[in-house]
């Protein structure tokens, strides 16, 4: 029976080429976009090195300093009573934030107050946003650097193509060693094969290359860099500054995802218990530790409410995705309805010879699934082509988009849903037609 349906589905496709072209374009283009979105999502949010354990991480990005004063707000209501004015006053005690300063943490602050978080399994502190301009053979290279500690390599699973990460000894002794990416090795030395042991000059210091890693393919500035240097080789002013603000960020690793709220609470409490040396400048110290989703959401929405921001981002993307799938599906339902209605007489004949409504429903849904699968295959081929072109052109240089199994699985599920949803309603409608009526009024 399925062979019969399959043959018929192919025939129907060939019969009305214009409909088929529009139908297949709708399906394949929608799938192409969905596959691109899932590929980008997978590249950025998937379980990819060096952020394999990101779901167990708590990210610490900024420290907020505020000067808070109590504020009393008076409200006076007046009314006419017995020909005389009467007044009723109420007051609420709130707070008035008269000064706010937000920045990253200083090296002194994190090592003094945040180095001992009991609920965390491991943690790392690092400093990003350092950029060096290097002139080589009349070429200018801009090199992004991250100053990291030795635990950084335990939390982030970089793939070392050669050499090793630096050790606690290197960090303790501020040894000028560097881990560089193979991209930088190519740019700096012209060849990534013999970079190990060579020296790279950044600012006024020379670092010996002891490890070479694959470029982190993510937009996250926690891991994306050209060179990684021991945190203790940072500018002395950054290391010795006893102020609260600086250029440091941190990541805590939970033994289990369930521990993330505990870590967030402990870190937030530790920070808020620190007293600012000059209370007349700032009298409240706070931070909002975030999980990976909240961190991305806070970049887009609201840094003060990462949980709400994440919810909002998910809601917006969910609704957009729903509409993106729903609109072509509705369009397909409409087109399928007219296409299937053209085949009323066939339905009449099938029913006369023993098909019941369920069989007819099944046949048309099956046909639709076949059509959407063909659209899906075209969509997948197009997606592979577009992914290749995006990677090749380096439009998104920090990401490598891959057509992997997850994306393929999403696509298959989307295909099935497309086929079933867009075929179900028209098929249900025609399956209920009266045989005598359709045979009387239709010719095959």
């Amino acid at each position, binding site marked *: 029976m399925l*062979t*019969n349906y399959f*043959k018929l589905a192919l*025939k129907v496709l060939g019969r009305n080429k214009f409909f088929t072209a529009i139908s297949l374009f709708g399906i394949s283009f929608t799938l192409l976009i969905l596959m691109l979105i899932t590929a980008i999502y997978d590249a950025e949010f998937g379980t990819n090195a060096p952020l394999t354990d990101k779901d167990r991480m708590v990210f610490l990005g900024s420290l907020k300093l505020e000067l808070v004063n109590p504020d009393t707000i008076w409200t006076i209501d007046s009314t006419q009573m017995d020909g005389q004015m009467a007044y009723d006053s109420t007051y609420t005690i709130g707070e008035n934030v008269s000064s706010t300063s937000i920045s990253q943490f200083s090296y002194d602050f994190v090592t003094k107050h945040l180095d001992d978080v009991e609920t965390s399994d491991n943690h790392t502190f690092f400093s990003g946003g350092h950029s060096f301009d290097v002139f080589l053979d009349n070429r200018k290279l801009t090199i992004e650097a991250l100053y990291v500690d030795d635990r950084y390599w335990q939390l982030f699973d970089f793939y070392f193509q050669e050499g090793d990460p630096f050790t606690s000894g290197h960090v303790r002794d501020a040894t000028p060693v560097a881990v560089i990416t193979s991209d930088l090795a190519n740019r700096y030395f012209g060849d990534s094969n013999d970079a190990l042991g060579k020296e790279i000059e950044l600012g006024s210091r020379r670092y010996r290359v002891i490890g070479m890693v694959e470029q982190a393919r993510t937009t996250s500035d926690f891991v994306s860099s050209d060179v990684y240097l021991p945190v203790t080789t940072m500018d002395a002013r950054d290391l010795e500054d006893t102020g609260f603000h600086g250029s440091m960020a941190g990541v805590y690793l939970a033994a289990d995802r369930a521990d993330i709220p505990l870590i967030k609470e402990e870190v937030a409490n530790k920070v808020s218990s620190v007293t600012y040396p000059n209370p007349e400048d700032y009298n409240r110290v706070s931070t909002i530790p975030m999980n990976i989703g909240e961190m991305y959401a806070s970049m887009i929405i609201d840094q003060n409410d990462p949980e709400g921001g994440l919810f909002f981002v998910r809601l917006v993307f969910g609704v957009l995705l729903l509409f993106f799938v729903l609109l072509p599906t509705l369009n397909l339902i409409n087109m399928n309805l007219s296409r299937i209605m053209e085949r009323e007489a*066939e339905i009449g004949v099938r029913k006369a010879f*023993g098909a019941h409504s369920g*069989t007819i429903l099944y046949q048309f849904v099956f046909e639709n699934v076949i059509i959407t699968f063909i659209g899906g295959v075209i969509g997948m081929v197009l997606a592979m082509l577009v992914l290749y072109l995006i990677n090749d052109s380096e439009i998104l240089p920090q990401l490598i988009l891959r057509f992997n199994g997850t994306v393929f699985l999403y696509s298959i599920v989307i295909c099935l849903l497309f086929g079933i949803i867009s075929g179900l309603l028209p098929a249900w409608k025609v399956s209920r037609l009266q*045989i005598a009526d359709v*045979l009387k009024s239709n010719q095959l």
Partner: protein
Amino acid sequence: MLTLENINKVYRTDTIETLALNNISLTVGEGEFLSIMGPSGCGKSTLLNIMGLIDEPSEGRVSVAGQSIADYNSKATARFRNQHLGFIFQSFHLINDLSVVDNVELPLLYRQVGSKERRRLAEEALEQVGLKNRMRHFPSQLSGGQKQRVAIARAIVGRPDIILADEPTGNLDSVMGNEIMDILLSLNEKAGTTIVMVTHDERMAKRTHRLVRLFDGSQVQ
């Protein structure tokens, strides 16, 4: 074998009510070849559709071998049609997107018949109507007579007890019409298949065992 008792069929619209069949009672015996005649619009096809369980009477009772069809739900009715009835239509009603042999296999798709057995039975039915050599053709490649022979093969492939033919020669010239009639007579005589045929053609009707005449929805003979 097939009994109709006091069958009425009324078509209703918002403004008008048309009595298509008026108190028809009829019995078709096993192995009988019955023809139904009457002017256009007298209710011949409606009567045939009710006999074939593809239309429902407004009133009255249809029973097969003593059992009322009203007791059947839609699934059971579909199964009954599939196993006991075969249809031949004036305008053939072949599925143009399927080959001749796939068209003939159609009734067997809705039975638990394996694909090889389906193919064997379809080829056998096509051989009976002399069209085995055209089994890979498509309906659009056939003449009217050939199409009707394919439709007959489709009607007999499941070896039904009753064949219901609605003007099977109506769209054919006299030579082809005679050929089709010969096939139907042969089926009735050799296989003992009960046939009910609606026709306009007096000559064809005379070749059957019994003739029922309708006029304005009522039986007059």
